[in-house]
């Protein structure tokens, strides 16, 4: 699994961090998404798919 993000789209909702805290974080000021693991381990895959689907701005793209 590989994660790509279009950071300009991110609105700082933090939904991705709630869904997959081991894989996503936010920067301090604007809350824009930070990817901690671009190729996360299999145990995180389900959470990452969930994060991509709850992101309101379709910032997160997942290729498997």
């Amino acid at each position, binding site marked *: 699994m590989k994660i790509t993000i279009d950071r*300009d789209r991110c*609105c*700082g*909702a*933090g*939904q991705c*961090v*709630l869904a997959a805290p081991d894989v996503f974080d*936010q*920067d*301090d*000021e*604007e*809350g*824009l998404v930070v990817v901690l693991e671009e190729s996360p381990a299999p145990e995180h895959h389900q959470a990452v798919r969930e994060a991509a*689907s*709850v*992101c*309101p*701005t*379709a910032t997160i793209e997942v290729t498997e």
Partner: protein
Amino acid sequence: MSVVVVGASAAGFATAEGLRRNGYDGALTLVGAEPELPYDRPPLSKQVLTGQWDAERIRLCGQDKATELGLDLRLGTPAAGLDTAARRVSLADGTELPYEQLVLATGVGPRPLPGTEGLRGVRMLRSLEDSLALRAELRPGTRLVVIGAGFLGTEIAAAARTMDAEVWLVEPEPVPLGIAVGAEVGEFVAGLHRERGVHLRTGPGAAVRDFKANAGQVEAVVLDDGTELRCDLVVVAIGSVPSTGWLAGSGLTLGDGIQCDSRCSAAPGVYAAGDVASWFHEHAGVRVRLEHRTNATEQGLYVARALLGQAGEPFTPVPYFWSDQYDTKLTAFGLLRGADEIRVVEGSIAEGAFVALYRKGSRLTGVLGVRRAKSVRQWRALLAAGSGWDEALADSPQ
């Protein structure tokens, strides 16, 4: 089973995608009034309006994706009537669509200002078409009056200033965004706009009384205190009206939006999601209707699960919104309106970086931050848990 979703935007598309992801493989029809494939609205008053992004960038779903999801797309054909007894939606072009389960996600439309009908140079902003039309008219030096300093009005004023238009922002309340976020933060927002050279007129004297026109083209906005603002262009941003006109006589309860129970259901087999849905929020203990982008996705996904009998609990999200004013992003969780107290717990409003908590009665009801987005999220858990105010201050995650 067969599902019809009316409203092909954020909430409707999230529902459709959620249904497929949760294993629904039956017939799925998505009906949209606009001819466009689903797209995202927040950039319409931001990156699309300023020209930073082109229209393709805000697409939520392309033709490929629609095919992959097996969507029967009916675009450019508004739904015109609903018969809940016969379980049938009729479209404006005469098509009749039977359904077993129906999702209403028709959003809201801009509230028009009486006296502006037929006046050229007066615009509103809701759709991609509106945003592109407005952008085409904004040039350096264009004299623009924005009526209404809510989220939409303030963002339009900000975008227009970055395009070097001459901007007046008029609002009968004492400060911009005051109703939504309170006087303290509203005053801060007023400062941002003044710094950038927006002519801000607030208070009762700034209510719009009249318009002046020449051969049908707007020339000036007249305020209640007699001020005449000469202008080339006016944008009306005074709130919105739920798009429920076509549901008159359907038997659904329509008040401020489509009235639903705590599981987003409006009648047997009928659900609503997004800006148009009003539902009873069991944790907050009040009926709410949110015009927030994140809610459209969350509620759409919830309704998808509810349709498949997988929802379980009632819908009790922690609301989230953001707003961009120039290079400043406001982010907030919870319900901020009508707070009894607002307290800054991190940073300060004066330095333009802060976290403020909102109290109603003895409860923590909201948190808002500027340049502290990550800290703001740390209060979310307390909001989700229905924390008391004293407890929240004592438990401060910082």
